């Protein structure tokens, strides 16, 4: 099941995140997630099988539909969106189209957009005034992705995802709907077969729509944006699965990692030329450094990291060997790019390595248990390592962590760490912009764990009911937690004052008659 954060918020469905594909941590993965990843077994990593796929998704991290002032909640059962003011808990509800399945907010906090599956439309909501305008899109779209600058959104149909409002119209497997947000205009486009998502360039000028067999390049500066198809394979219907696509910050190159393919596809978007560069055996992950200068690719079987110059991807890459024979398959850069975490969640390996990117060395650390997922603080100096319940093969059954869920709060630039035994599985986490706090929630537990990145000490906050999603507010160190409740429940936790404000039954506000 994919995450339908806002739907589940109202329906109280606690997601099985084992197949959840949410955006990866990197700045260039802000689009609709790392599609097509073979997620493997999240609940327990493999037993050392080097061929298992890395879980590419940062699956626990949830994108809040929040601005610096408000949290927006879609009410698909009542065709409304609820806006909750963080400072006052003031609740306002506004009608949108039928069955708004998701709500997203722009980075300038000015707009919120809903995908109204029941109407085959997108509603645009002004955050302050709650003025709503709707534009029709192509039929049966069930995914929506908003560009970082909020100028465009793309809707598409994912046959593997749940649809809430299938209409009688034609369902296309080649169409996407681009929507300009202001003025509100719809641009239907035919792209490659089975579009999986969109990548937006940092400058807001380009988007690429990714399919297995092709990329569709969209010039967002055009008066009427159109898609130009760039084939990635001779036979689009038999093309390798595109597991990961990275767009360089300037939008000049796209890198495509395909399943089972040893080469990396490099697409020169200016000239629309497709080429391949060699990487080590079994590329399983890639990440652009925060400065945008280099692309690191993990070659798991080769036990190497290949670094490409983004300006000149055909130049000879720098290759660094792993510090050990551990089959690491994932990489995540820290905030300033000076170091990166190398780990795996495809095998039951109880270690990770911190790569000193500038110095070239590694600090390999033994963990209490294998890795399920890792969250980094914004500057990357603290990691929240979520462990699998599964232990390494030779684990001691008498170890207190044996057979249990666990989390490690770890300094990546120091030796401090705090290993926490958990009563149940973590189901969501988030970090604050100010690099001070990380939050996570646990399956079935009426708790919010607030972790100080300064002290590595967690505060346990009791909730009124079982949490479903957790997120933070841009520019604040407070967290919001949605919880199971028939009529909706949202709490705000302020770690400075250690206060929890809870709003219950806010969905009733959608039915207030004035």
């Amino acid at each position, binding site marked *: 099941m994919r995450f339908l954060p806002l739907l589940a918020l109202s329906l109280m469905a606690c997601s099985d995140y084992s197949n959840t594909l949410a955006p990866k941590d990197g700045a260039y993965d802000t689009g609709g997630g790392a599609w097509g990843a073979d997620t493997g077994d999240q609940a327990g990593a493999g037993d050392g099988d080097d061929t298992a796929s890395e879980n590419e998704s940062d699956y626990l991290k949830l994108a809040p539909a929040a601005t610096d002032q408000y949290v927006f909640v879609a009410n698909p*059962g*009542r065709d409304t969106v609820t806006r909750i003011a963080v400072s006052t*808990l*003031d*609740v*306002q509800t506004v009608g949108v189209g039928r069955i708004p399945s998701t709500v997203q907010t722009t980075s300038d906090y000015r707009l919120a957009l809903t995908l109204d599956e029941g109407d085959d439309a997108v509603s645009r909501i002004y955050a302050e005034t709650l003025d709503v305008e709707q534009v029709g899109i192509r039929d049966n779209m069930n995914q929506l992705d908003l560009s970082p600058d909020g100028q465009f959104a793309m809707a598409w149909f994912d046959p593997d995802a749940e649809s809430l409002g299938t209409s009688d119209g034609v369902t296309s497997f080649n169409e996407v709907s681009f929507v300009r947000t202001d003025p509100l205009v719809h641009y239907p486009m035919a792209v490659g077969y089975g579009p999986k998502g969109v990548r937006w360039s940092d400058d807001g000028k380009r988007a690429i729509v990714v399919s297995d067999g092709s990329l569709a390049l969209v010039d967002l500066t055009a008066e009427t944006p159109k898609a130009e198809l760039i084939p990635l394979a001779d036979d689009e219907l038999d093309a390798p699965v595109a597991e990961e696509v990275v767009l360089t910050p300037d939008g000049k190159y796209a890198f495509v990692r395909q399943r089972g393919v040893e080469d990396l596809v490099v697409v020169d978007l200016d000239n629309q030329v497709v080429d391949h560069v060699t990487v080590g055996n079994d590329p399983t992950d890639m990440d652009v450094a925060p400065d945008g200068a280099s692309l690191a690719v993990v070659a798991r079987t080769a036990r190497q990291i290949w670094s490409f110059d983004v300006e000149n991807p055909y130049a000879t890459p720098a290759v660094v060997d792993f510090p050990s024979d551990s089959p690491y398959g994932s990489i995540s850069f820290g905030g300033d790019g000076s170091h990166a975490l190398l780990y795996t969640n495809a095998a039951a390996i109880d270690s990770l390595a911190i790569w000193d990117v500038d110095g070239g060395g590694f600090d390999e650390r033994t963990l209490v248990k294998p890795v399920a997922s890792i969250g980094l603080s914004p500057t990357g100096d603290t990691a929240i390592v979520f462990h699998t319940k599964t232990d390494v093969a030779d684990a001691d059954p008498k170890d207190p962590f044996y057979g249990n869920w666990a989390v490690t709060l770890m300094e990546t630039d120091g030796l401090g760490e705090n290993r926490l035994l958990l009563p149940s599985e973590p189901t969501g986490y988030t970090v604050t912009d100010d690099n001070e706090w990380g939050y996570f929630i646990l399956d079935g537990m009426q708790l919010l764990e607030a972790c100080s990145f300064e002290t590595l000490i967690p505060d346990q906050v009791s909730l*009124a009911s079982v949490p479903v999603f957790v997120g933070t507010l841009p520019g604040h160190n407070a967290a919001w937690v949605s919880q199971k*409740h028939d*009529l909706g*429940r949202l709490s705000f936790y302020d770690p400075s004052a250690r*206060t929890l*404000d809870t*709003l*219950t*039954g*806010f*969905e*009733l*506000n*959608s*039915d*207030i*008659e*004035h």
Partner: protein
Amino acid sequence: MLLPLLLLGCNPWDIPDVGSNSPGELWDPAVVPAKDGVYVRLPAAGTLVRVTHDGAWSTVDLDGARPDRLFASPDGASVFVDTSWDVCEDDDPAIVYPEDCPDSKLSTATEVALVRDGERVGGAALDGVSAALDQVAWTTDSGTAALYLSPEAGAEVVVDGYLNLNEVTFVETADATVHRVSVGFAPESVLFTGDDSRAVVLSRSQVAVVNLANDVDGCDAWSVCVTYHLTLDADQTVTPHDVVLVGDGRYALVSVESSSDVYVLDLERESIDLLELVAPPSAVVDDPANNRTVFTFGTKPMVSVLEHDFFEVQDIATDEPESAAALTSSGVLLYNDAIDAYKDVLMFDPASGDWDEQRAENPIYDLRAGTRYAVANERPEGTALSDVYDSHYVFGIFQLAPAGTEGVRDPVHLVLQSEPVGLETLETDSADYALLLLSDVDSLLKVRLDDASATSIDLPAAPLGIAASPDASFIVTGDSPMGMVSFVDPADDSLQTVTGFATSNFLGRPALPRRAASE
């Protein structure tokens, strides 16, 4: 509105039905004191009389209708009178009396009149107001009344034509102007905001706010400004149980039956929040001075305190469950009048959570809290072999003082000769008193509360009931077939008794009213 709720231990709008229409009785001892006299129903004569302190009485012209039920306004200035009369659909001029009319053509019509100074306001009944409406709520100035049908009303309700269960009828008492407002199905209760500008109407699964003033915030007067739905599931019924206004009237706290949820309606921002208490509350009392609301739970030894800044709830364990609560100047008085086994009487400080404990001797069934004392009627709980307390009715006197006060007198319990049939309290500058009537005792017991000393005021007959009058006197009804009302002046314990008013129209034979042939 909350205080009487808690003092009485029942719904504040559950006005006592003073319309016990027993055939053969000349007068109904459930009299209604008003500023201009005491109104008494004469069922046999089918008339309403007003008895005044000077010993006079006069008949109120109801245009031939019989008074069935009386409701007085809190200030005593006005009295609602539900009336009925016989209607014969046969215009034969020979038909003069109800018994002349064929049964198939005889029916009963009803209406409501607003009476003041012995006359119907406006000279007629209220236009289109159903006499089936048996509940009334008043604004603080008694200027407006809200009439609606009790949710407990059963099949015995007489519907004259039709009855709209979605309406609340508002009556402006100054000129008897009627406003019917559709508020939602089956209104449960009505509460007015402190400034009397709005009415909060609880009905099935929703709460409506009615604007009583002119065009406030774009909302027309006598219309619903906002409706809060308490559920989003049309198949689910949420029945409001109680409501209080807190935070200077900005918030309405609505408890619902069989639920530990309390709805917080923000009347200013027009939004809803829900609080979850430890159990369904049995009583709720607001303490504006401390900006807190106190909930009790009847069967759970716990008190929950809700503060109004962040709406956080603090649960405080007590020794026994408390089913009722009353706000006093010393704190919130907590007690249990639902389960005999629990006799603790607590003075609770909502700000600190501290309390002092006193204890009743017998189960409390009627408690009145004043400024300095609370008094309670306590019923026997034992058998003939039990001790003197357990086998008798007991009158308890509890000194009220803030929790933690030293030197508070222990409760005093007076063993009573018989069952109390009436209780009123009186606070004066010099002393506080309770006025107590006992069954089959021809005297009024006046108990000084600070020393529990009692004096008797002889009554001319066995008392039937006592009621406070708007003029600070007390009305005692006596067991006399021709009617007996005594005006008691507590200042000097003097008694002015009026008798014989039940003979008004005693010998008259009621004719069919309002017939052209008979005019």
